[in-house]
């Protein structure tokens, strides 16, 4: 089969790319290796309402499991800081419904989907990519002018195209989650728990859904004394008030790339979403960034296909657009991450006393200078602040 564009992976990045490409009249085929789009999730399902509005993305109401009005953060000793206000409004999604809806939107625009269909190899020939696929119908080949790699953290497309998509263990969260029913926590907020015995170099979370909650954590191996799964069991045991009547109804795991190293384009190839490591390095959220990358990629791909120029140089416009919008924020958030990774539990206690919810929101927006001014007054953190956060 010959197509203009082949999208590999039907998560939020892949389906958004497919919708945007098909809407431009580009012949688009999407392949997804799993037998069901959207499951199993590898995600806590939270998105910021504000972030989606900025991109003009509307989520189908059936894809929203709960509306959230803020976040409650807990220090290791349990001190609570609440973040709320217009900018903190958010949704906890039902990924399976959300992603199937996105796929249906792409199909409405004219994209064709093939599920339980895996890409097994990819070679360059006569200015096209020959992609070997395996499905219930046997082995076949798709020849595409453009391949969009939306194949997630385990991206093979990037590797086949010669891009350095390899993740580093030092910048890659090991994540585990129980979706639980019977959780006793304020369901208007997401709850985030910090501490080096809770979730080393990461955090634990409770994200309330319609009749259950995603309860999970992400850790960095370099700070960990045991597996993510063991930390999660410990977290649940130590919060009897929250979990004494709760039981899991689903278990999820996954890797979260919290740093961006890879190139995003090659000859006739563009990477989007997790495949391109486009995740917020502070909180590990990736859905909105993934969809934004696909909107940008499709715009550039539309022009490039019309000009019949799918060279790396032409497609680099996409990477440039991305960097113009996100590079500065991402590098500041990486600095902040470097700083936070050095903190001991007593420092988290100090921060919990020192910071208001609004301050923490500013930090997540990569506004760091006010924070440095506050830290300079704390002799114990002055050294770290100077080392990691100074411009």
């Amino acid at each position, binding site marked *: 089969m010959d197509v203009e564009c082949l999208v590999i992976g039907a998560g939020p990045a892949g389906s958004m790319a497919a919708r945007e490409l098909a809407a431009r009249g580009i012949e688009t085929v999407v392949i997804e290796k799993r037998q069901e789009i959207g499951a*199993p999730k*590898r995600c806590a399902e939270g998105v910021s309402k504000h972030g989606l509005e900025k991109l003009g993305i509307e989520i189908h109401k059936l894809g929203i499991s709960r509306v959230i009005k803020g976040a409650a953060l807990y220090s290791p000793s349990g001190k609570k800081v609440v973040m709320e206000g217009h900018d903190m409004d958010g949704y906890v999604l039902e990924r399976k419904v959300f992603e199937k809806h996105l796929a249906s939107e792409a199909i409405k625009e004219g994209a064709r989907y093939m599920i339980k269909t895996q890409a097994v190899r990819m070679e360059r020939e006569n200015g096209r990519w020959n992609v070997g696929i395996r499905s219930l119908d046997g082995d076949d080949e798709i020849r595409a002018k453009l391949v969009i790699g939306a194949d997630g953290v*385990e991206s*093979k497309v990037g590797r086949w195209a010669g891009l350095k998509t390899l993740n580093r263990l030092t910048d890659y969260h090991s994540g*585990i989650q129980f979706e639980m029913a019977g959780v006793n926590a304020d369901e208007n907020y997401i709850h985030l728990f910090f501490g080096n015995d809770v979730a080393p170099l990461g955090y634990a979370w409770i994200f309330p859904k319609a009749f259950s909650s995603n309860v999970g954590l992400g850790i960095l191996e370099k700070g960990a004394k045991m*597996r993510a799964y063991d930390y999660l069991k410990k977290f649940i045991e130590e919060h009897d008030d929250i979990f004494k009547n709760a039981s899991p109804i689903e278990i*999820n*795991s996954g890797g979260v790339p919290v740093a961006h190293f890879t190139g995003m384009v090659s000859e006739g190839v563009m990477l989007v979403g997790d495949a391109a490591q486009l995740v917020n390095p502070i909180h590990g959220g990736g859905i909105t960034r993934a969809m934004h990358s696909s909107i940008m990629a499709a715009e550039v791909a539309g022009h490039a296909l019309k000009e019949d120029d799918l060279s790396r140089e032409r497609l680099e416009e996409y990477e440039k657009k991305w960097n113009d919008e996100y590079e500065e924020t991402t590098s500041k958030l990486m600095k902040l991450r470097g700083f936070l990774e050095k903190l001991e539990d007593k420092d988290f206690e100090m921060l919990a006393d020192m910071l208001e919810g609004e301050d923490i929101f500013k930090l997540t927006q990569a506004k760091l200078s006010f924070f440095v001014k506050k830290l300079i007054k704390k002799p114990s953190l002055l050294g770290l602040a100077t080392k990691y956060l100074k411009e």
Partner: protein
Amino acid sequence: MIKVDKERCMHCGGCVGLCPVDALTLSETELTVSDNCNECMICVKFCPVGALGV
């Protein structure tokens, strides 16, 4: 070569993105290890549920 405990593996593919020699592949519900594996142990250190070992 790394061994996969099929009863424990969650098929999340997190390990695949870390393999420096591209020895790991996830096919929906089967994680396979190729001869490229040099037992660098990165995937073993990552696995959230301890499904990988030598």
